[in-house]
């Protein structure tokens, strides 16, 4: 770690000598070991040794950033020169600000040392488990890896953070097949800190494989109706709350003033049963963020609590530009509070609707309107799943949806990066041929 600290210290001193009023830099090294499976067969074992230096300087309120992956003096000198040159070509902005005075901190988390043989065993076991339990599944690609990183973040404003972390991750892309019939592809992911459990028992992988196997025989939806749609946890995070964060609460939409929620802080924006937080220190989150890109120590915060908007997801820069508070962390460690309705009960309560695992559509507009294809889903009629979906589109409005909540499931997805239940919303337009 001393080497990283010395590099960072020298960079900051040189930047200050060249006129920087404020600067920060990250120096780190990482290693990755990764097994790949393609088309149901092992294809690759790779080992990566990476380096990174990120430098940002502020000169008279003007910001410039440079990143390189070399630690030699020549490359660092050139990077400093380029960073100063970039800052000098910018326009001044008094909104740039870094955290200050936190001193030296040490963060360590996860599995630092890889168990490569055991990782290979678990990968092979996962492939075998899929073949045995789900013979209709073809694994298009599976990437199983261990990543560890160590490094230093240092700023001229009195922060020095030393960190070490490691984790295992499995990412699968697969579809089910029978003769010439096949399903849409689907992806399952999990991140863990140890290899104690078979991967198939982690997150919702087993359940998701079952669901995909049951989607081989599909039926197209005829006509158009307005109904209830259950979003699976992964789809809820990516399609619903991922877009809500981006469209209503992120830097971009607050900075350009297009957020529908720009005046809604402290007001009700969702059903009171909905609580969404960002908690990188939650024990279910693997190697959660410990400090933000602007050097602030990450703290957990509520985004929406009991339906009321508690915070935007702003950097300090955009907070300063817009007169708002910055978010207490910059991670996407999303925790959506679960409900008390079993998924089975949720399905039983729906007269006509869908349960969908993936949404293929364009990014919703800043007004929240979305439309696209419902993928990896099933039709629900009279409280029962009747068939898998084909060529079915859904449309609605994200902001309206949050106030049309039907139920939140007891079951949750815990995949190491998010925690989320199933959620059912009413008033969604479903259309077919």
């Amino acid at each position, binding site marked *: 770690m001393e080497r990283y600290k010395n590099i960072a210290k020298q960079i900051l001193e040189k930047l200050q000598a060249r006129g920087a009023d404020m600067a920060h830099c990250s120096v780190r090294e990482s290693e990755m070991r990764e097994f790949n499976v393609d088309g149901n067969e092992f294809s*690759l074992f*790779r080992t*990566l*040794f990476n380096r*990174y230096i990120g430098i940002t300087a502020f000169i008279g309120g003007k910001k410039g950033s440079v990143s390189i992956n070399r630690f030699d003096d020549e490359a660092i000198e050139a990077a400093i020169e380029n960073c100063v040159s*970039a800052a000098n070509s910018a326009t001044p902005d008094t909104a740039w600000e870094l955290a200050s005075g936190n001193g030296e901190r040490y963060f360590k988390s996860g599995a630092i040392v890889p168990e490569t043989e055991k990782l290979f065993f678990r990968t092979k076991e996962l492939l075998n488990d899929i073949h045995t339990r789900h013979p209709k599944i073809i694994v298009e690609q599976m990437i199983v890896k261990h990543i560890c990183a160590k490094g230093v973040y240092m700023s001229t404003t009195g922060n020095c953070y030393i960190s070490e972390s490691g984790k295992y991750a499995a990412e699968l892309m697969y579809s089910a097949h029978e003769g010439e019939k*096949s399903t849409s592809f689907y992806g399952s992911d999990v991140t863990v800190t140890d290899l104690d459990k078979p991967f198939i028992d982690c997150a919702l992988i087993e359940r998701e494989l079952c669901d995909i196997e049951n989607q081989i025989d599909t039926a197209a939806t005829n006509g158009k109706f307005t109904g209830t749609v259950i979003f699976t946890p992964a789809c809820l995070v990516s399609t619903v709350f991922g877009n809500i964060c981006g469209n209503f609460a992120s830097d971009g939409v607050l*900075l350009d003033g297009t957020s529908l929620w720009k005046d809604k802080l402290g007001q009700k924006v969702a059903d009171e049963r909905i609580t969404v937080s960002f908690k990188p220190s939650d024990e279910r989150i693997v190697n959660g963020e410990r400090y933000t890109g602007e050097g602030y120590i990450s703290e957990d915060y509520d985004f929406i609590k009991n339906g009321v908007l508690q915070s935007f997801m702003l950097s300090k820069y955009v907070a300063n530009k817009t007169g708002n508070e910055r978010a207490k962390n910059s991670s996407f460690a999303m925790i959506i509070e679960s409900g008390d309705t079993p998924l089975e009960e949720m399905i039983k309560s729906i007269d006509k609707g869908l349960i969908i695992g993936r949404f293929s559509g364009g990014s919703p507009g800043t007004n929240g309107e979305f*439309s696209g294809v419902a993928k990896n889903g099933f039709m629900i009629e009279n409280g029962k799943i009747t068939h898998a979906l084909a060529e079915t589109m859904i449309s609605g409005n994200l902001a309206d949806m949050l106030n049309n909540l039907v139920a939140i499931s007891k079951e949750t997805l815990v995949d190491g990066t998010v925690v989320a239940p199933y959620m059912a919303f009413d008033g969604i337009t479903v259309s077919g041929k």
Partner: protein
Amino acid sequence: MLKDIITPKKILFVPNAHTELRGQLSRSRGATVVSGNLTGNSRQDISGISARVYKNGTYGFASMAEYSPDAAEAVLRAATENADFMEKNVNKGKGPLPNINCGCRALDCDIPDAEQKRYVDFARSVDDYIASKYKNLASRTVAAREDSMEKLLCVSNGFDAHTCLQRSYIYVFLNAETQSGAPVELFKAFGGEGGFEANFKDPEALYPEIDALYERLMQKREGIYADAGEKTVILGGMMSGMLAHEAVGHTVEADLVLGGSVAGPSLNKIVASEMVSLTDFAHTAFGEKTPLPVYVDDEGVEAIDARIIENGVLVGYMNNRETAQHFGMTPCGNARAWAFSDEPLIRMRNTAILPGKDKLEDMIASVEDGYYLIDSSNGQADTTGEFMFGVSMGYEIKNGKLGRALLDTTISGVAFNMLKTVDMVSDEVVWSSSGFCGKKQPMPVGMGGPALRCKVMIGGR
């Protein structure tokens, strides 16, 4: 520019295995102005070396963030150890890859590097122009970008090569509101292959096209929702290029075929109207250089065109050397890696539907009640061929004439069904190359096509 430190290391390649040793320098430069605020101003230089070794059906790969003779030796050792690990624990017993044409290709271009001030000043000039001329916009974003990949490749069998792919763009996003307060956005990318200085000498050269973009945005602001349902449409060249890439191209990547894509059982079958042919071009198309030419891929294959659909029949896939052996096809140079630390994957290069003989104006005139769909905001497709594209600009066609502009809508369908409905193909191909294709790694790709008359599902409100 990379010095050749890897050729002397060829003597370290182990016998009875296919080995690739690649040095790479990837650069990116960018400046972003959001409604007058310079929010991005950054440069990145990433270099290193990697080796990949193939033994009996599996690969070992290793990379280091260091471009030096020592690093070359270290990654060769580590990749060989990884290949040995896989051979011992997996051993597919597939034997060696078939030999291919060997040769050497030298770098044939400079790799200029503009100062950061050029990106910032250019983006600011364009933003100032928009801000001063068009006061009724809700917001605007101007981004100046350049990225380049310089590679030095040595292989145990195939082509050694020193190549570079450099491209630069100005991206302009304009946002306005309809009378009811709904947002409308249009986007255009200017630029293409080459360095920033060469592609962007004077901001004023872009102003006429920015004016035209604004005019279209104002038309869209007054636009209507499309009627939902199956409609006769003219897909403009940008849309047919998206179709070629997303809905057909991915399904015929041989690794996805092995993963169960719809193209597996469709080989040598009719998958489109006989008016439709589709090729993934290497470096030259219709007598001109393609938007992003590839001459040698990262497995040492000299790049040639990959013919995919001919007169409606699926005739081939895009392969790497291993899948080409599996399917008994010729590798055409589709194995490409993004960063030095990435292994080559099967990727598209310049994928296009071939032009026909029809005139666009005749095609529009032939539609009694339908739509002319020009630009796509995004596109997604499944390995089943089911696709969904966002339509960001289009017009209604009534009695053969263009009518009102459309608000954002989507089209969807199944590629090999929808392509069978094509009954007119225009004589002009439109290319685009400003985006990245995502498949484990990002990759710059070109895509193009003529206008197509066809039937497709269009979403309404």
